């Protein structure tokens, strides 16, 4: 279920504004399907942001994050052309990553 992932990073004065969009159902385990059975939990648990190969943000999240999550981060000391990599890992072991250059 790892659909497309999009990221954008733009300089905003002294920091890079990083926005990332992940395609994920973020299923809470509290919903019931048409058959009345609970839909199993399926959600992103970990995410990581790297700047030029170095980890700058490590996140742990719960099923409370909305479906198809969108995150914004700010990385100081970045400059145009720097490489930003973002990856996630969910509770089923699925993973996805994307990268972009700071504009």
């Amino acid at each position, binding site marked *: 279920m790892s659909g497309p992932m999009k990221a954008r990073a733009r300089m905003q004065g002294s920091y890079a504004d990083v926005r990332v969009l992940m395609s994920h159902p973020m299923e809470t385990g509290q919903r019931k399907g048409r058959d009345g059975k609970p839909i199993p939990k399926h959600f992103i648990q970990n995410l990581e942001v*790297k700047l030029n190969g170095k980890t700058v943000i490590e996140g742990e999240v719960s099923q409370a994050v909305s*479906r198809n999550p969108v995150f914004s981060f*700010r990385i100081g000391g970045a400059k145009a052309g720097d490489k930003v990599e973002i990856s996630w890992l969910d509770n089923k072991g699925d993973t996805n990553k994307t990268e972009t250059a700071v504009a």
Partner: protein
Amino acid sequence: MDEARRVVLRGAGATGVLAVALAAGLLKPERAIAASWNKAAFDAKSAVDALKSIGAADTQESGDIVIEAPQIAENGAVVPIEVSSKIPGTTSLAVLIEKNPFPLAAHFKFTGGAMPFVKVNVKMGESSIVRVVADAGGKHYTATKEVKVTIGGCGG
């Protein structure tokens, strides 16, 4: 002298083990993301227990934590929350939605140039206090904001 020789041999042994493990596919170098997820904290059913599990049982109120969230959220499935800390040396931010079945929603750690800032959309089952806890220099600071929800978001 002998001691140094031991160290070298031990080092060589460890490298050998690593090479074998890599060859056997036991370690996957392409899987770059660390998989540590604080299950106890995320499974906690109260904000107090969740905070204990992330080592932030003692917090003090701070006006230097900024929480941007709507006062009234029409759709609990997508509530935009933006949090940041102006406390010098902030290394992590935790977001808790106190009335959610599992209050801890996110816990971010910042290193290098990353600023203590995150914006994320969250689900809220009902109107609740949103609590943010910042870790700076081993001390924990907190701030809250109430968000009223007109339609709950547990349906995802």
